[in-house]
């Protein structure tokens, strides 16, 4: 695909007029706030909230010494790995099955798509309802099977709840991409492998899976970013970050510290840390995807 176009229109003012709306919005609502986040991350409000003092990297140092912040890091890491890992494996399984059935893959696709449309906040409420210790259908079944369940008290239970909700929502997105990836593998490759004597299990691991690695990598990054950010609503709805801080992922903490605890500097510093992580992830992904596209 050409990166440049050979043909151009000539006008010195028109292109500026065309990009102006987006540029203005980006400048006002993106660059300006991002710059402010950077600014406030190196400032500290005094006890009365009337003055700000430049404190260099103190906020950052304080962050990384703060047990709760590090705990939040841990929670986020566990959470995103679980969400990405489970989300990818389950949807890969489903996509592989859907690719195998000649009739009906379209129907299954239609049936599996729509959790994408469910708002994370709503998903959080739904799963909360199913797992509510006293009235939830699933929690009842669990208790009946001898597995005690109370996500209001048990941090692990709470984490499992939000992981389940997050994975449930993300399955359709991953499924779509995996299915498209599988369907784009030339049938001749699979047939050649079959003639060579490889059974379906072997074929999957030696032919299909390797060819899916670009898609899988792309989805991995997307899922991790999703787990970092888009799950805020799920957590706020289902557990409110609790019990205690057991499900307070990084972005939740930013919100909490900034709006509930009113810690401007600390919250800004956290924002900056988050920004760096995302930039890193996106750059890695873009570099990798670009390389793949070029061959």
């Amino acid at each position, binding site marked *: 695909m*050409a990166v440049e*176009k050979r*043909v*151009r*229109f000539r006008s010195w003012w*028109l*292109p500026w007029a065309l*990009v102006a*709306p*987006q*540029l203005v*919005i*980006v400048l*006002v*609502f*993106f660059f300006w*706030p*991002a*710059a*402010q986040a950077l600014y*406030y991350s190196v400032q500290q409000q005094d006890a009365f909230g009337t003055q700000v003092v430049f404190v260099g990297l103190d906020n950052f140092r304080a962050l990384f010494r703060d047990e709760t912040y590090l705990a939040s890091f841990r929670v986020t890491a566990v959470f995103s790995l679980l969400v990405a890992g489970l989300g990818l494996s389950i949807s890969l399984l*489903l996509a592989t*099955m859907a690719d*195998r*059935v000649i009739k*009906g893959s379209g129907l*299954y696709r239609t*049936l599996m*798509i729509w959790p994408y*449309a*469910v*708002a994370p*906040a*709503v998903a959080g*409420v*739904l*799963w909360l*309802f*199913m797992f509510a210790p*006293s*009235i939830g*259908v699933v929690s009842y*079944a669990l208790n009946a099977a001898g597995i005690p369940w109370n996500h209001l008290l048990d941090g692990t239970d709470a984490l499992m709840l939000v992981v389940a909700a997050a994975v*449930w929502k993300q*399955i359709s997105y991953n499924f*779509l991409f995996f299915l*498209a990836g599988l369907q784009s593998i030339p049938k001749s490759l*699979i047939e050649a492998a*079959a003639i060579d004597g490889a059974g*379906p299990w072997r074929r999957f691991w030696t032919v299909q899976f390797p060819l899916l690695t670009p898609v899988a990598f*792309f989805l991995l990054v997307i899922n991790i970013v999703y787990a970092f950010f888009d799950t*805020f*609503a799920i957590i706020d709805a289902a557990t409110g970050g609790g019990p205690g801080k057991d499900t307070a992922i990084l*972005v939740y903490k*930013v919100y909490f510290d900034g*709006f509930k605890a009113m810690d401007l500097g600390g919250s800004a510093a956290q*924002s900056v840390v988050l*920004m760096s992580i*995302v930039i890193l992830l*996106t750059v890695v992904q873009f570099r990798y995807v670009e390389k793949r596209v070029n061959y």
Partner: protein
Amino acid sequence: MVENRPAATVLSHLTLILGVLVIAFPVYITFIASTQTAEQIVQQVPMSLLPGDNIVNSYKFALFGGVTEYGSRLQPALPMLTVSLISALVIAIGKIAISLLSAFAVVYFRFPGRTLVFWMIFITLMLPVEVRILPTYKVVSDLGLLNTYAGLTVPLIASATATFLFRQFFLTVPDELVEAARIDGAGPMRFFKDVLLPLSTTSIAALFVIQFIYGWNQYLWPLLMTTDESMYPVVMGIKRMISGGDAATEWNSVMATAMLAMIPPALVVLLMQRWFVKGLVDSEK
């Protein structure tokens, strides 16, 4: 697939059906709950898995609010649904319009600073609103846009997914079309309107679905910047309804509201499914 193994095909179907059931289960529960009364849900443990007969009541209260027989005051969902609908539409349409223009400029014109402009827009891809919530809140507040539709929507139009997608698409349009148009005497905007836009309908449709859902599902941002209940989108409203604790919450109304909240995006996805899937997958490339 390649070999004819009926057993394997049956297994595949079973797995898929299981998958569909698991995916559908939460929504099924929600629907069931919305058809019962709050009492039934709380007192009958576990909740029955069959539809109840309170469906009209639940939805009536959910939509229009009022004082229920338990004495609690329910916020009507209808205004919230309206807020969600308007925001989602404004975000989707606004984003598409702006991005079409920017992508057109970046691809079809050569002007000084073009690369800089492109990268500036591209960087926004990397940082979702959740990362810059505090300062963006401050900016919106300073501009006096709290509790307004403008404040709800405009900051979310800043990201570049749409611009990027359109740019990729425009690059695949054959050069000869532009040349033929030039010979025909079409200026840039004429070309844009008569040739480029009609060719972009698939991308526009796919993006509309993605952005509508993105706008409809917004939670954190409205949470921060609306304090006026009349400006709450429905996804936010639902969360607020359950803050009373398991037993105190009128689950049937909550679930009815949840069903209502799920319908418009689901409709959009289902109706535009074909374009949406194609556009989503193509946008990765």
